[in-house]
């Protein structure tokens, strides 16, 4: 079966969604992965946006933004951010959130805020590179039951310590989240361009859970700045089936995958 890295990543992410889940996605590849799941194996899952667009699916292509016309055309409810990120996410009612990352550490803490010349300096100064900030990702990571993180597997992105902790994963590991009484469960998986990481049940350190048919444990370790551990149950991620690829392409009517 022929498939690209982006297709593998989108399908692997989509497989994290269970039928019946209430889900929240960002734009781009995470939304593609989400609507692929709804179209393929999770027809009873429900998608919502951070600003409170409910019951909709994209019309005329994947949305330019999470509240634009393409995602608003067939909505059953227009609500607001306090409802979506508060009453549904902060309450713990939302099952799954997919977020992107520019940088991640071994405990699944995410940076989407910026890169600094001297990240070890805790005092705030102008960043060398300004990124997008949290959006709703911090809220999603604090509130939803299961968080899925998507990012490119490159050494500079898989850092021992993130330049800025925008969105909490497991903080310092173990039960560190308990100090903050987060209602959400934290990241269950990190889907990369090379494979899938999942947290150790006790230490919460991310480990290689599976690698893609075109990748390897070695390649994943080489592209990680810390000593990446391997799960005792490590396996090869099942490659996309022809049916999965057909559905993915049908959802991707505006060719997001080709642009990557």
């Amino acid at each position, binding site marked *: 079966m022929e498939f690209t890295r982006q297709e593998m990543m989108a399908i692997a992410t989509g497989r994290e969604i269970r039928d019946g889940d209430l889900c929240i996605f960002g*734009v*781009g590849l995470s939304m593609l992965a989400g609507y692929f799941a709804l179209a393929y194996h999770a027809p009873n899952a429900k998608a919502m*946006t*951070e*600003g*409170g*667009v409910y019951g909709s699916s994209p*019309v*005329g292509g*994947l*949305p*330019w*933004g*999470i*509240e*634009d*016309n*393409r995602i*608003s*055309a067939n909505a059953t409810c*227009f*609500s*607001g*951010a*306090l409802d979506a*990120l*508060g009453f549904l*996410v*902060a309450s713990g009612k939302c099952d799954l959130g997919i977020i992107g990352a520019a940088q991640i550490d071994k405990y699944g803490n995410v940076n989407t*805020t910026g890169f600094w010349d001297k990240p070890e300096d*805790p*005092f*705030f*100064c*102008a*960043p*060398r*590179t*300004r*990124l*997008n*900030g*949290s*959006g*709703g*990702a*911090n*809220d999603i990571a*604090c*509130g939803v039951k299961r968080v899925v993180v998507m990012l490119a597997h490159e050494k500079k992105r898989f850092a021992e310590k993130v330049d*800025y*902790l*925008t*969105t*909490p994963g497991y903080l310092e590991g173990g039960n560190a*989240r308990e*100090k*903050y*009484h*987060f209602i959400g469960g934290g990241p269950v998986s990190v889907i990369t361009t090379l494979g899938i990481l999942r947290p150790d049940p006790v230490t919460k350190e991310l480990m290689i859970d599976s690698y893609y048919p075109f990748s390897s444990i070695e390649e994943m370790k080489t592209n990680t700045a810390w000593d990446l551990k391997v799960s005792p149950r490590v396996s090869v991620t099942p490659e996309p089936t022809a049916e999965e690829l057909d559905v993915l392409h049908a959802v991707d009517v505006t060719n997001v995958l080709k642009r990557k």
Partner: protein
Amino acid sequence: MPNKLIKLRDAVSKYTRDGMVYCSGAGLPVGSDSLVFGKEMLCQGRKDIHYLTHCCSQQVNLFCAAGVCNKVEAAFSGLEVYGFANGVRRAVESGKVVWEDWSNLSMSLRFLGGALRWPFVPATVNIGSDMQYRSAFNPDEYPCKTKIPDITDPFTGKVYGALPVARPELAVIHVTMADVEGNAIFLGTEWSRFELARAADQVILQADFIVDTDCMRQYPNLVRIPDLLVEAVIPWQLGAWPQCSVGVYDSDAEHMAAMNKMLGTAEGTQEFRKNFIDVWQTHEEYMALIGNDKIEKIMNNATTHLMDPYRKWIKSDPEIATLMTQSIFA
């Protein structure tokens, strides 16, 4: 109730001032925002604006690029699928704009707290992250204890965070339709326009359509901003361009990208102002700038059915011109 229609130029002149705490709504990167109001603020030379918003929009991008604002508090600084906001990046990386980071829920809660005149809002988000521990407004304090201070739940003894409430001096909110008195209905998500309209000291609406008050009487439960809260109403069709207005027009992909590219440099920002802001004085000239072909293209979108229930109440341009003469601001 009085007719509060006001000309764009007069609204900016009357209600804005240098250094004010300003907020635009809905503050979306691609959707609703009061862009045309922001362009007029630039024309009138406003500066040192302290900008509160949910997300970056092309208004925030323009303000940062052109030096209209020097402080921003927001949850998101990008333009979603249109990419990083080049004007924001240039201003923040050079230190010309100080950008304080929050999340979307914390911005919503801060507006809610501001609306209720609460002293603070308990936070179950942003705590334990660098959004709590680092502050662009207090750069030397680490870990920062003043941005989101710890607070103890008096009932359980558990420690959470305290969010400062947000009370902008002025909120300028883009709405799909308003009547002359300031009752507003918006299509699409409201984000925090409900809370924002109640948190701000003064509220101005920028409306794509002016409708008869009978429309509000037909759908009173959809009026999320009532006239009681509103100082003035600016009629300005396509006022969120090049962003979208759900039910009316799509985002203009070509102009979104071109504008963002130009705002990436000081020279490009000047060029943008010269070619896309300084060339119109009236709404007719603004529409001519966008062009009939583009208007037809962006108005032909999958959401137009959402406007169908309201069309019979839409006021025509001549009717709006007459209503303008009867306004308290005439």
